[in-house]
């Protein structure tokens, strides 16, 4: 039941629907009424939001990965790769699968972008990311899909003992969009940081779903997701952390906070901690509310005009996610990206 399968087979009954528990807020079956034509091959000039940071560029245009080898990272030198998913076919459908293997002890900064350059496409991207023992990956995603697009990205991450994985997924949503991350967490000193931010206006929809499975001793997961929605936009956060029997010493923390700036905007959140081990430290928090009117009055009393006060407080709210990005250059690009987006909200 995936968008990729439906696109490959042309069988719309393969689409996830509201009857699937994990997709109840991101119904695709009810939205997609016809199989789209396959998107044509195309090319784009090098670039993307992270272009200034250099590194190798892997551009997947309209789902085509021909000629793109699997990304294998090894050796002691830290590497940086820019992975771009570009959609240029209006109304077309495409899917891609990318494999990334980071060998033991190696280190990768993965800068990923979703760039919608046409209206109303259907795009699916699957990433398989494996980290060897002691490897580290920081993945930073900026998703700028088209307002009428349907876009699903699923990253399946396999951690080895002692590996460190962190990610920050930031999105402006689409007609319907889901950015999902699944982590097989062995414990054994491995750590995962899973952050995200959705900044939505108009009728955009974004779904940040994560599932972490702690299968062994002494693993850590730390998660912070923030959302800002206005107009008739809808944000979805689903975070599931499973601590398997015997995965003692697990430290798992999940936080989701959302600001709703308009009456007709909506946020649906489902934080889940499923704990089958005894000796664990787990916590989750979930708050959804409006901007603090008292804080706005306070800022205005000091001379900050209303609109600027709202923008300042909203930017500060999202800033906590951005501050946690480890890569300096990517952090500042993410900050500017968020400020531009919030400025237009």
């Amino acid at each position: 039941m995936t968008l990729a399968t439906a696109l490959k087979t042309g069988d719309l009954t393969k689409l996830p629907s509201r009857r699937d528990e994990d997709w109840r807020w991101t119904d695709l079956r009810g939205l997609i009424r016809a199989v789209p034509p396959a998107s044509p091959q195309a090319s784009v000039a090098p670039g993307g939001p992270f272009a200034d940071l250099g590194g190798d560029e892997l551009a997947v245009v309209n789902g085509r990965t021909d000629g793109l080898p699997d990304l294998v990272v090894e050796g002691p030198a830290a590497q940086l790769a820019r992975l771009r998913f570009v959609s240029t076919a209006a109304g077309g459908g495409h899917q891609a699968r990318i494999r990334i293997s980071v060998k033991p002890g190696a280190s990768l900064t993965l800068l990923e972008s979703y760039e919608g350059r046409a209206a109303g496409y259907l795009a699916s991207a699957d990433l398989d990311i494996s980290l060897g023992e002691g490897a580290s990956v920081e993945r930073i995603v900026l998703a700028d899909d088209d307002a009428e697009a349907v876009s699903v990205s699923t990253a399946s991450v396999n951690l080895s003992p002692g590996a460190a994985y962190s990610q920050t997924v930031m999105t402006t949503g689409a007609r319907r969009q889901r950015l999902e991350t699944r982590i097989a967490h062995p414990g054994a000193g491995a750590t995962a940081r899973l952050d995200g931010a959705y900044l939505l206006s108009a009728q955009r929809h974004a779904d940040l779903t994560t599932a972490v499975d702690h299968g062994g001793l002494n693993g850590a997961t730390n998660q912070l997701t923030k959302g800002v929605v206005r107009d008739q936009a809808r944000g979805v956060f689903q975070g599931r952390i499973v601590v398997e029997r015997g995965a003692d010493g697990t430290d798992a923390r999940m936080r989701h906070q959302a600001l709703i700036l308009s009456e007709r905007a909506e946020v649906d959140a489902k934080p889940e901690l499923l704990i089958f081990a005894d000796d664990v430290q787990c916590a989750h928090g979930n708050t959804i509310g409006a901007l603090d009117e008292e804080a706005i009055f306070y800022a205005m009393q000091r001379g900050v005009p209303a609109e600027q006060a709202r923008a300042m407080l909203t930017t500060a709210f999202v800033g906590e996610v951005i501050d946690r990005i480890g890569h300096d250059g990517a952090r500042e690009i993410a900050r500017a990206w968020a400020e531009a987006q919030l400025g237009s909200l």
Partner: protein
Amino acid sequence: MLSIQNLHATVADKPILKGLTLDLPAGEVHAIMGPNGAGKSTLSYVLTGREGYEVSEGSATLDGEDLLGLDPSERAARGVFLSFQYPLEIPGVPALTFIRTALNAQRKARGEPEVSAPAFLKQARETAAALKIDFDMLKRSLNVGFSGGEKKRMEIFQMAMLSPRLLILDETDSGLDIDALKIVAAGVNAMRSPGRAMLVITHYQRLLDYIRPDRVHVLSAGRIVASGGPELAHELEREGYDKYGKAA
């Protein structure tokens, strides 16, 4: 400077101020004292334009210009500053960033150029030293995790940095121990000048030992019911507010 005439105001349709008249000339410090519920905080919010505080009658002008038609930020740009009884926490916005944003917004509203970063930092360092504020504290999110006393000191710091003309101090002594009170009072007194006026709102006389008022007014049930010199504050401390009637 500040002229309030026959001011009536309601909160949630309940009348709180019922014909308050007050003249505060430039260069003077006036204290507003009164029992709980008399309308002291309401007066400070009406003067600063907080939402939910509706003026039904009367006027308030600053140097002849109507205040009540302006939004809170426009009043601030004209020099109105309120030191909050309960200062707000602003997560994610460092104190210095907040104050510089406010200062430049005020300057922009007045048609003045932005203050340069070095000039701002120099002033901030000097002001912080005078108020015994650790400069590193100014890099932290404004008021987040600060003690009650630190928050009050931060209000006075902001006041000094923004250099307002009309200073309203709402229960500034609450939550301060005697040492902090002396520091805060010294900071306030340093701002006394012929071009400024201060309204010191307080329930207790203690603060007025350190910030000496020129005039003391008693606010009860939404009106000024008595006015006098500094000795009035001592009389209130001795005899209480009973003779002025309970708040409505």
